[in-house]
């Protein structure tokens, strides 16, 4: 039977190839998702700065409890900024048995640059006492002994050409300061990814802006004391968070987990690497299931006569079912065995792109174990065998006498279960779409995938009837198009069931492609529009690295021609009411018109907040209500809403007074907005050379271009995965179309023998395809709209999605090209064959 199945596969290479390609791609993407997920879970960064410290205490995440009773869920959300620890804890930890020393570390973002010039580079300031945690040891010079002395790491020293005695400058929150190099140090292991500079302990604490708290406490054990013992002892002093407590709590890290403490990037990378696959893995499985059910079903349909013959000469229905299932199993095993390698290659490529684009640190590595490929292969097998099993039920229902009849007319039978299921799917899709319109951002995006999936499944179930209906309606017009039109109308009506998978794959491509692509364009467009409409500044000063010293705005106000200069801090706040949803936050400026709809921004004093309308809606707050949030460093607070505004997407979802927000950030301004005459620009640039070397002045237009680029970069990972899925649905559609076309050999031969010319056949095929495409575009478009409109409303506030002309062109043009190419080319090939030969042997 396996031999028979294999031979029959070889006889119909097109259908085998179609199923194989769809399976291969599915297995590859699922493998890639799995490997990425596992790599994310296992990613801890590498302890470099803290390599010598076996146990660390730090606050890196926010404990959030959502739900109640059985639904109660405790989550640890990575904090946007590092949380703080009371410095007093250091002494307590140092007193533990087995601890040789406990060292408090404070990391402050800065930029290092030479005494002359603007060549600034991001770096971190640490106290010299924390050098032992790596350990950094002096290679030249001496340790910093007084304010104004600095130790550089060897790499930075080389870049700056500095040696003991030279001067370097640091850009700190308080401004640009000059230091004298007292020594040069290097770690015994790998140097940390970020350049490191050391000041005296006192000065390092002072520049951090939070002298009474520390970031990390590192423990170094006495010789022979294992890390586990130290960690256990530390646990006694740093207790677990109480069961019902939310907020930030210091935790003890040891072993590989220490990498998580080194930079917040690690947690962000983990978040990304685990979130991406969870959203898109399910979607891939669904596409694979739909497509493979289609191709396997088609391949059974096309072998109708072969199967009837086998039944007549003595194959039992069970044998036919087994043949179909085994055939798919053979394909699935081949596809799985090769597809996983495609997945591995994909993840490696993705990892390089992530690192190259700065989305993850360079220490992010691909971790391959046996689990993801085995799971992906199993999913591929299950999908393929499941689809084959369903198709085999049809195969075993084929009656042996059907081998004896002259023609194989499509029989209308069974499948009445499809109508109630299809209608249920339709209803479910609509309900999901309504649900999506009540969600925000990422949540809404993941629900959007389910909306598309449910609606496409409904179309798949209802496709035979949809095809019949449209054939009946369009038939009237087609019959007016002469003999080829009549033929096309008759074919479309007669092959409603055969074309069902073809329609499904077209709808999938259009519905999925349309909603995913235009979701992104709509958000980008609205953000750009709001930013254009709201930005009143003539120039924007942007830093070359992490930020601008807070005094820059005040200094720039003194430049002749500058009439206003506002420093803007960007950070985020996390909602304490509902699972820690993160919102962007900024400080207000007169040079930004946020489009206030209620309240007044002028009331932003003390513990107050202004909030954009969409956030206000989803938080269910209005002017006068209070909001409970965490700052980016995990400090809880209660704020009173004083205003609501419209342009949240173009600027930030929330606006807080500078004196409320800034203490919970690194103390740097993200940008400075200027109102100034063009003549003032030169003066501004000259002054920036002193107060913020490396910073750039952008005109309003240039700034907005740069902003768009940032947005695009930020969305790269999402867009990447969406394009992979788009390629997948396109491949699937091409497969199904080409397969359906190749199955028409006998029918086309009959037409040619009865005098239809090549030209007429091609015209007929094009008319049929045009009808199918039209229906696919309408239904797919409707699905895209049903998904997009609530989503776009939820994220931008307007219910009209923005679809750029090139977007229309690429979706419609792409579908038309794919559909015609995948049909007309195989038909042309069929037409080159001798019709007499083609009619004889195969269906």
């Amino acid at each position, binding site marked *: 039977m396996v031999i*028979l199945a294999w*031979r*029959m596969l*070889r*006889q119909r290479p097109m259908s085998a190839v179609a199923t194989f390609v769809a399976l291969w791609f599915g297995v590859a993407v699922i493998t890639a998702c799995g490997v990425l997920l596992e790599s994310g879970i296992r990613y801890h960064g590498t302890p470099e700065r803290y390599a010598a410290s076996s146990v660390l205490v730090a606050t890196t995440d926010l404990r959030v409890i959502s739900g109640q009773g059985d639904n109660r869920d405790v989550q640890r959300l990575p904090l946007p900024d590092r949380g703080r620890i009371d410095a007093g804890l250091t002494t307590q930890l140092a007193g533990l048995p087995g601890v040789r020393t406990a060292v408090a570390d404070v990391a402050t973002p800065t930029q290092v640059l030479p005494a002359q010039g603007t060549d600034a580079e991001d770096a971190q300031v640490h106290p010299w006492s924390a050098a032992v945690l790596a350990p950094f040891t002096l290679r030249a010079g001496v340790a910093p002994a007084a304010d104004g002395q600095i130790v550089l790491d060897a790499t930075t020293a080389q870049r700056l050409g500095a040696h003991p005695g030279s001067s370097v400058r640091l850009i700190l929150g308080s401004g640009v300061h000059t230091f004298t190099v007292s020594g040069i140090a290097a770690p015994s292991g790998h140097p940390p990814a970020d350049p490191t500079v050391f000041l005296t302990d006192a000065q390092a604490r002072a520049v951090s802006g939070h002298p009474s708290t520390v970031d990390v406490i590192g423990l170094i054990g006495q010789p022979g004391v294992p890390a586990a013992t130290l960690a256990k002892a530390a646990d006694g002093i740093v207790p677990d968070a109480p069961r019902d407590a939310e907020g930030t709590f210091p935790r003890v890290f040891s072993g590989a987990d220490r990498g998580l403490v080194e930079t917040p990037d690690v947690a962000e990378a983990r978040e990304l690497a685990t979130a991406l696959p969870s959203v898109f893995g399910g979607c891939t499985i669904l596409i694979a299931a739909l497509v493979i059910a289609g191709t396997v079903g088609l391949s059974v349909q096309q072998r109708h*006569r*072969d199967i009837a*013959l*086998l*039944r*007549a*000469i*003595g*194959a*039992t*229905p*069970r*044998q036919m079912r087994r043949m179909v299932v085994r055939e798919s199993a053979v394909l699935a095993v081949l596809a799985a065995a090769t597809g996983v390698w495609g997945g591995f290659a994909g993840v490696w490529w993705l990892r390089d792109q992530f690192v190259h684009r700065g989305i993850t640190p360079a220490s992010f590595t691909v971790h391959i174990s046996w689990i993801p490929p085995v799971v992906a292969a199993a999913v591929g097998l299950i999908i393929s065998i499941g689809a084959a099993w369903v198709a085999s039920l049809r195969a075993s229902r084929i*009656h*042996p*006498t059907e*081998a*004896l009849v002259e023609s194989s007319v499509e029989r209308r039978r069974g499948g009445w279960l499809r109508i109630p299921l299809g209608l249920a799917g339709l209803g479910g899709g609509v309900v999901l779409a309504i649900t999506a319109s009540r969600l925000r951002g990422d949540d809404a995006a993941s629900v959007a995938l389910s909306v598309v999936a449910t609606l496409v499944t409904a179309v798949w179930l209802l496709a035979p009837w949809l095809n019949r209906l449209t054939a009946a309606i369009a038939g009237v017009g087609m019959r007016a198009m002469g003999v080829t039109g009549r033929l096309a109308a008759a074919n479309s009506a007669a092959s409603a069931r055969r074309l069902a998978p073809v329609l499904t794959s077209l709808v999938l491509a259009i519905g999925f492609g349309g909603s995913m692509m235009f979701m992104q364009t709509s958000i980008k467009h609205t953000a750009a529009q709001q930013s254009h409409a709201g930005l009143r500044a003539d120039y924007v000063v942007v830093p070359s690295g992490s930020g601008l010293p807070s005094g820059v705005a005040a200094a720039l106000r003194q430049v002749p021609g500058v009439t206003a200069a506002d420093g803007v801090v960007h950070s985020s706040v996390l909602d304490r009411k509902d699972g820690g949803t993160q919102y962007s936050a900024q400080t207000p400026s007169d040079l930004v018109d946020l489009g206030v709809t209620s309240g007044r921004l002028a009331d932003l004093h003390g513990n107050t907040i202004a909030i954009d309308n969409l956030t206000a809606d989803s938080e269910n707050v209005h002017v006068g209500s209070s909001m409970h949030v965490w700052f980016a460093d995990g400090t809880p607070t209660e704020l009173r809403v004083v205003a609501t505004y419209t342009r949240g997407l173009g600027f930030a979802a929330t606006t807080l007074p500078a004196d409320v927000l800034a203490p919970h950030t690194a103390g740097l301004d993200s940008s400075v907005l200027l109102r100034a005459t063009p003549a003032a620009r030169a003066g501004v640039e000259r002054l920036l050379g002193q107060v913020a070397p490396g910073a750039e002045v952008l005109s309003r237009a240039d700034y907005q271009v740069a902003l768009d680029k940032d947005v695009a970069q930020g969305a790269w990972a999402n867009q990447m995965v969406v394009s992979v899925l788009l390629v997948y649905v396109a491949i699937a559609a091409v497969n199904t179309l080409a397969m359906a076309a190749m199955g028409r050999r006998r029918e086309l031969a009959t037409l040619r023998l009865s005098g239809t010319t090549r030209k007429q056949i091609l015209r007929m095929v094009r008319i049929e395809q045009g009808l199918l495409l039209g229906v696919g575009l309408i239904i797919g478009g409707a699905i895209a709209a049903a998904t997009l409109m609530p989503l776009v409303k939820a994220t931008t506030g307007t219910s009209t999605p923005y679809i750029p002309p090139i977007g229309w062109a690429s979706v419609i043009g792409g579908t038309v090209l794919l559909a015609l190419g995948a049909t007309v080319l195989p038909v042309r090939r069929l037409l080159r064959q001798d019709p007499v*030969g083609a009619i*004889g*042997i*195969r*269906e």
Partner: protein
Amino acid sequence: MQAIIEQDRPETTAAAGDLAVAVQAVRKSYGRGNSTVQALAGVDVSFARRTFTAVMGQSGSGKSTLLHCAAGLDRPTDGHVWIGDTELGTLSESDLTRLRRTRVGFVFQAFNLVPALNVRENVLLPSRLARRSVDKHWLNEVLRRVGLDDRLRHRPAQLSGGQQQRVAIARALATRPEVIFCDEPTGALDSQTAAGVLDLLRESVDHDGQTVVMVTHDPVAASYADRVVFLADGAVVRDVPAPGVNAIAEMLVHLGRPANPSNAGRPSW
């Protein structure tokens, strides 16, 4: 009408044990309600072992339906069918299939062969489906007789129509079935190729004691048979032992007149 058939029935009809196939009071209708079509309206006919019978009739006379019912490809709405001493009505679909692959051979008008398999594999297919070993000696004999022993590795697409029908006959003979059913086996062939195929069928009856039941509308093909059964409107109207080609053609022409059920069966010469 019943009386006429009794009268025409050949004397050779013997005890039940000597019948390969017996069909008793078989009715077959398609569709429901007003659109019901009665394809067989109560047919009684039996086929003795080691005989070659042709079943003739106009299109729509029910001859193909009779063949399907007699061969266990289709179930009658009413009535009984025996192959040997097995009553088909009591068999499940799977048992029916098993019976077909071991005790019945088929030759259809076209599309007889699985295109993916070569000649030898096609011939072996029923045995393989039944997981039974094949008598190598007999297999070679059958392949030699149909004259395809040098084309065993060819695919059906590489063979002519006549050769394909020969492969189908070889497949039918290979399992030594109790009866071989042929549905217009020469319908798609020219007369010379057809003669070769019919000779093979005749030979299998004469040499190997096979039983062959063949549906055809070609008087020349029917003349190879020992007996010709005529059907009209779903009923047997004539049953004649080995008439010549001309007599068959004559009878066929008269059957073709607008149906008048009361005298449809009366000899008209």
